[in-house]
């Protein structure tokens, strides 16, 4: 209580109800303004304490007691005052009142009970109705739920329908677009077909016209000849005519007439020489369509002059450089007579050249292959050319006819080499389909198929054997008649070409790993000589290397366009001929006279080299 704390202060201080009265300030100005306030506060507290607090509780209790006593007194007085006037009547009145009150209470209680029962009944009814209401609400909720569910389903189905419809529309659009494109393509296809047909027709017409012209020319010529022959006198001359370079070897006199008469007509298919057959042969002259018959005669080719080179000369300079073909040149070959050169390549034709006065002159073009030429060979008589082609066939031409006499088909893949066999009328072909086939020219059919283990890249034929070089780095020697593998010679790498020397003793093989190998066939030990040179690289899988006709030198073309010439006996590089070729040299050939070397490369160029 605040009074308690203030008491402490008051007992200490000199203030309070000082009987001496208010204390006069000693100095007057020394006191702060708060002193009188504090004094007053103290005084008030003190006063309250003494006057108020002490008596508060006391007076309260006193008043309470007073009230209680007065109440008690009042009750007593009340009760005392009542009985004095008329007590009895009031008692009976009271009793009567009491009983009446009891009756009314009983009635009221009864009414209360009744009313309570009614309330209970009403409550039951109310509950029942509540229950029914709840039920109905449940059912309603259920109905709402199913309604909502159905609505959702409807919406989903509608959604799906919409999606399907859009898909369908998209597909329809695409289909229409595809249809229009189809129509356009059809139209274009029709146009293209028409164009192709037109072109083919044109080509066919050209061919036909050319053939017609040729046949007409031949007819006309023949007519003229016949006329001249019919008109001229026939003088029977038994002496044989001087063999020309173009004619076959002089056989018996039966042939002479026809040979002299037909010297200029060698371009035609040769008729058989015997006189009883003149008519049939004349008849057959007009039968151009027939191939395979009278390709060669029995009398022909039995013996033919074989040229011998006395000495080959190392080429030193280029005499003639020309672009020989339309596309790359793959093969080049001098014929057995020095003057004629055949080149063939990717442009599907063989061009014949004559070496005259140090330059190559184009003589003729032989076509008929449908794809590039891989290998060319002249037959020993020099009248026929055999070529192997990419179109899986080997072709045979007679030199005077640009249309091939024979086409030997049967290989499954490109024919890499085709050679005249030592047997008459036989041709050996090697192919990438891992077979070597022997063909009979008279029948123009394949007589034997020899399966080999590997891609045959080149072939050479000697009297008794066929030698083939393969990609599996082996050279196989086959017996001609039995056509079985007699010997297998290992090579340094993939064999790209083979060449036999003129005496059929040395075999040159050119391998992919830039090495030339010379094998002596007759020696039992089969020792080899390897020829390498710095800078010599074998340019392709069909690079051709050759032995010089006298067997002293080897020539090969390198990938950088340089011709390398080795000395076969000393194993050294004899010479290099650079700068004439701009691309990889695919083949070289040495003329039979030993004078000329021709190299051809992939960029259509042919170079005639000589040592002069």
């Amino acid at each position: 209580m605040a009074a308690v704390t203030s008491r402490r202060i008051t007992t200490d201080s000199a203030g309070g109800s000082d009987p001496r009265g208010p204390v006069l300030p000693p100095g007057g100005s020394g006191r702060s303004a708060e002193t009188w306030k504090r004094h007053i506060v103290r005084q008030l507290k003190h006063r309250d304490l003494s006057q108020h607090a002490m008596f508060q509780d006391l007076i309260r209790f006193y008043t309470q007691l007073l009230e209680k006593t007065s109440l008690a007194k009042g009750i007593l007085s009340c009760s005392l005052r009542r009985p004095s006037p008329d007590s009895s009547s009031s008692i009976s009145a009271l009793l009567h009142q009491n009983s009446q009150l009891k009756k009314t209470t009983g009635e009221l209680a009864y009414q209360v009970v009744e009313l309570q029962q009614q309330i209970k009944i009403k409550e039951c009814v109310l509950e029942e109705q509540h229950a029914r209401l709840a039920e109905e609400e449940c059912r309603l909720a259920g109905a709402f739920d199913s309604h909502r569910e159905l609505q959702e389903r409807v919406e989903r189905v509608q959604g799906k329908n919409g999606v399907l419809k859009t898909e369908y529309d998209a597909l329809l659009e695409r289909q229409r677009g595809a249809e229009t494109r189809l129509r356009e393509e059809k139209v274009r296809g029709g146009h293209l077909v028409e164009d192709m047909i037109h072109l083919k027709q044109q080509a066919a017409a050209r061919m036909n016209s050319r053939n017609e012209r040729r046949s007409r020319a031949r007819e006309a010529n023949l007519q003229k000849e016949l006329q001249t022959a019919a008109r001229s006198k026939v003088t029977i001359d038994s002496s044989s005519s001087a063999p020309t370079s173009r004619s076959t070897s002089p056989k018996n006199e039966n042939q002479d007439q026809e040979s002299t008469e037909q010297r200029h007509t060698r371009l035609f298919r040769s008729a058989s020489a015997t006189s009883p057959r003149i008519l049939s042969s004349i008849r057959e002259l007009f039968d151009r369509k027939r191939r395979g018959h009278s390709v060669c005669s029995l009398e022909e080719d039995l013996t033919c002059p074989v040229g011998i080179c006395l000495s080959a000369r190392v080429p030193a300079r280029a005499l003639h450089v020309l672009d020989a073909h339309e596309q790359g040149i793959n093969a080049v070959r001098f014929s057995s007579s020095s003057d004629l050169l055949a080149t063939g390549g990717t442009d599907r034709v063989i061009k014949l050249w004559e070496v005259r006065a140090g330059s190559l002159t184009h003589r003729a073009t032989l076509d008929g292959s449908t794809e590039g030429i891989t290998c060319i060979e002249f037959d020993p008589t020099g009248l026929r050319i055999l070529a192997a082609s990419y179109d899986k066939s080997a072709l045979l031409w007679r030199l005077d006819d640009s249309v091939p006499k024979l086409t030997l088909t049967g290989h499954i893949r490109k024919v890499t080499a085709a050679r005249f066999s030592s047997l008459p009328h036989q041709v050996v072909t090697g192919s990438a389909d891992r077979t070597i086939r022997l063909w009979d020219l008279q029948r123009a059919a394949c007589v034997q198929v020899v399966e080999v283990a590997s891609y045959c890249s080149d072939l050479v034929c000697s009297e008794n054997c066929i030698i083939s070089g393969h990609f599996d780095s082996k050279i196989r020697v086959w017996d001609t008649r039995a056509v079985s593998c007699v010997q297998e010679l290992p090579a340094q790498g993939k064999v790209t070409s083979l060449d036999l020397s003129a005496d059929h003793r040395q075999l040159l093989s050119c391998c992919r790993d830039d090495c030339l190998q010379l094998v002596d066939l007759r020696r039992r030990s089969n020792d080899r000589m390897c020829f390498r040179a710095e800078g010599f690289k074998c340019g392709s899988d069909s690079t051709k290397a050759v032995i010089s006709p006298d067997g002293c030198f080897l020539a090969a073309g390198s990938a950088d366009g340089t011709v390398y010439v080795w000395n076969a006996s000393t194993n050294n590089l004899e010479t290099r001929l650079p700068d004439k070729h701009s691309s990889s040299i695919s083949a070289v050939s040495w003329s039979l006279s030993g004078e000329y070397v021709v190299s051809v490369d992939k960029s259509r160029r042919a170079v005639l080299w000589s040592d002069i």
Partner: protein
Amino acid sequence: MADDKDVLRDVWFGRIPTCFTLNQDEVTEREAEPYYLLLPRVSYLTLVTDKVKKHFLKVMKAEDVEEMWFEYEGTPLKWHYPIGVLFDLHASNTVLPWSITVHFKNFPDRDLLHCPSNSVIEAHFMSSIKEADALKHKSQVVNDMQKKDHKQLWMGLQNDKFDQFWAMNRKLMEYPTEEGGFRYIPFRIYQAMSDRPFIQKLFRPISPEGNAHTLGNLLKEMYPTAIPNDGEPKRYQVVIHGIEPLLETPLQWLSEHLSHPDNFLHISSWITQETVGLNGGNSELTDSLMRGRSESCP
């Protein structure tokens, strides 16, 4: 400031323990016990004595009851004085509780005013407030108040609601700052044993020089005998609300905080018993009584 609020509260809630005893001459049916009551210092007798009347009416017959009046030791107590003033003036030095005798007959018309109902007390109370405000603010503040504000003042006093009363009364305690205080201080100095009822004159709280006048200044001006000269012992007691403030208490502060609810500073003064001449045992008795009063706190 907290002190000031405490002062106001202590002033408002001051109580005097009183014992009301019925006059023996009154005709009663049986003996009336005395009635004890804590009277508020700031209120008026007729306002707070309803219970007393009820208590004594229980033992009296209705026909014997006239207007109730009070007296103390023969002196009729004027109901229009605040109770605290009456106590301080007449019985401050006596033993508590204050014994008042209740009369129901023989109303002294010459000494007392009739008080038939509470509205009379209200009228008296409001007129005091207006008079005080006339002195303080030239009646501006009280005239600006509305009727309900006056009613609030009266209801606060009647129901003993300090906050309700002071919510309105603080307006009456404001003054413009440039003045430094009220215009004149409303005060009344009551003297015991005097013919004059009270001293009330115009007195400014601030001197013309600007100094604040103190209680001492007021007494010197109005009642110089109360203040002893230097060297003389104190002869008079100057009491406000039962306490003796120091003479240097500023008058403005006194008027703001120690005024009664009717905004007047009621100052009671009497001669201290010692100087009256009571010597020996009496003075010692009074000394011990006074000492006992101050030290009787448990």
